[in-house]
């Protein structure tokens, strides 16, 4: 996964602006998809990453803010760069609070936009990689048996073997076997690594 795979989505109701943005981004080497309305984008977006969305704030029928909200509801984390013809500060604040990547005033210098796009794409890639890692960790965790998972959870919480044996009402020997197997399945070499993986996967805390 790298920047060559990224697609820059451009949504602006103004033909000239849309075409010129696409031309500029294209000139800078980005793949682009230009769309005339938020609705059109939402209907056609297939979840492709990495990439980013260059979104005009003021559009008839469906404004940029609405598009952002809908994407949030759909748990799509495509970075959004807002473009606004009117430097509307409250709207910018609101957009940023909702997780917008950037809020630029039109017309903006080409390097400002391109810089933002570049950063957004990189974030998109990172997000995509993180998501892949989490998925891998979850797969590994899911491969553990119930007991192994319990032991791993206690290890992540910093418990020693004896404490685990007492908590789970099993012998020290048995704890040591589960611990060995879990570390092997999780492909880690320390209890600290176990703790990091479990945190990454967002696994619920063990009971007790």
């Amino acid at each position, binding site marked *: 996964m790298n920047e060559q795979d990224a697609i820059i989505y451009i949504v602006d109701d103004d033909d000239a602006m849309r075409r010129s943005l696409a031309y*500029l981004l294209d000139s800078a080497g980005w793949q682009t998809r230009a769309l005339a309305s938020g609705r059109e984008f939402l209907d056609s977006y297939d979840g492709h990453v990495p990439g980013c969305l260059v979104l005009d704030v003021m559009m008839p029928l469906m404004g940029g803010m609405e598009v952002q909200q809908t994407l949030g509801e759909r748990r799509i984390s495509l970075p959004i760069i807002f473009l606004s013809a009117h430097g509307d500060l409250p709207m910018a604040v609101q957009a940023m609070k909702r997780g917008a990547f950037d809020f630029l005033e039109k017309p903006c210098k080409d390097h400002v936009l391109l810089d933002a796009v570049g950063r957004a794409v990189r974030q998109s890639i990172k997000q995509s990689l993180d998501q892949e890692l989490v998925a891998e960790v979850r797969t590994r965790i899911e491969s553990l048996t119930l007991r192994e998972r319990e032991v791993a959870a206690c290890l992540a919480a910093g418990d020693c073997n004896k404490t685990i044996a007492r908590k789970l009402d099993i012998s020290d020997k048995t704890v040591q076997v589960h611990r060995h197997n879990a570390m092997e399945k999780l492909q880690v070499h320390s209890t600290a690594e176990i703790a990091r993986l479990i945190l990454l996967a967002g696994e619920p805390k063990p009971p007790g």
Partner: protein
Amino acid sequence: MPNLQTAIFVLACCFAVIGGAVADTPQRVRVAVLADKGVEAAEEEWDYVLDWLNHDVPGYEFVIVAFDHPELREAVHAGNVDFLITNAGNYGEFEYSEGVSRIATLDSPLALSPSRAVGSAVVVRGDSGLTELAQLRGKHLLAASHDAFCCYQIAARELVEAGVDPEKDLGELEFTGFPIQSIARAVRDGKADAGFLKTCLLEQMIDSGALKAGELRVLNPQDIPGYPCQTTSRLYPDWAFAALKGTATDLSRKVTVSLLEMPSSPEGYRWAIPAHYAVLDELFRDLKLGRYANLQEVTLTDLVSRHRYTLLVIALLIVLLLIHTIRVDYLVTRRTRELQRAHQEKEDMAEAMRERQQALDHSSRLAVLGSMASAIAHELKQPLAAIDNFARGIDRRIAAGRLEPEPLRDGCNEITLQSQRADATIERIRNFARKGSSTMQSVNLLAYVREAVELFEVAHPEANIQWLSMNRQDDTRVKADPIQIQQVTFNLLKNAIDAQSMQGRARAAITVSLEREGAGYRVGVRDQGGNLTEEQVAHLFEPFFTTKSDGLGLGLALSKWIIDAHGGTLKLTRETAGVCASFWLPEEQLDE
């Protein structure tokens, strides 16, 4: 017995003196006399009679008072006299009009009898060809006066019987007055065709040598045995002595007796018992005089004289009416002038109003432009930003060595397109702001309304405008100033979005429609900005009325003015969700 005689004389004298003393204040009796020959002649003529009465009727002083016709009429009417002596005709008139009664008739030596005493002789020149009264038609006649008995009325009757109306049929009827001798002389001298004379005058004049026999000839002479003079007419009674209505009976009786006992005058005149005046009656009837005056054919002159006072009143009324008419006319003229002036003032005011409206129009356009400033900026920023993007894109391609001609040319074309767009925008704004550049032309209403809506959408991206109208291809041709129509459309849209914004519903749909209605088209802008009160709607068209906190209050007033100027109508309708503002324009009348 001379002494006795003397004594009687003395006694008589004494008596006379005593009587004089007793008659220190003798009752004055006024005897009016018609002086048809002049006052002195009349007094002289009747002196004998008066002397006799003064002598014969004691205790009274008889005084003679001579009058001409009008004076006599007046005196008798006023009752200023006790008795009157006048000719038969005049007497007849007074008997009827004033109630005088004859007590004696003059008995003249020439008369056949008192009742057949005088007549009238119509004389012509001896060598005249006239022989019949009927031949007098169209001729020039002389008579003494209209009132003259012997010298007009009597003869006139004969003319009437001969079929000639002396008042109408004669060429000329000339009244010469007295003395009548002048009539005879005038006829003799050829100054007239004929003349009316009193009987016996001709004979007297010949006797006195004033005329020669044969110079004048009496027309249609009557054969009256025993009558010494030639006459054209029948004979009538002689002069009458008459008592007025108010004269004491006792005095009348005394005078009557005295007159009858009066000895003949030296010329042979006496008084006789009153003659029968029936013959006069016939005369009056024929001439329609006296009591028969109302029989007279009405002539204008008669009317005038008879209804003098009525006519005077009528004339006065007419004059008043005239004055009134003139006054009314004057007032009407003045009022008309005032109205014209008022009208002129109104025109002037309307002209001033128009000028002000134009100024207002201009300032309002500027106001609209001001409110559009951000929209204008946006409208210009868009193409500029696009140009910037394209230019930098091209630059980046060159820098990166990506020199494929196709994308580079695309970028250049885009730059050209966008600069044209910016230019068009500037031109549009300039047209919009230009003062008095109203140019009526044949335009497709739909296209311009559509353009205005698009312009508005640019200025207000938050606006949600729905089209409900004909196809873009439909030709909705009107005669209009496209800029003004766009301004109105823009105004209505601005009102709609403002109303909705105030309700916090800026994004609600604004429906723009264009429909055919009657002989024209209606453009409607329907908002959901909540309801206005009936009162607000009523005031909305007034300049400087506004419901907006930052409004000038010119939009609708100006819009209405523009639409009115286009011969259209602008109206507001309250609806459940908001207001529908619409204007109607007549379709263009094609001459072909």
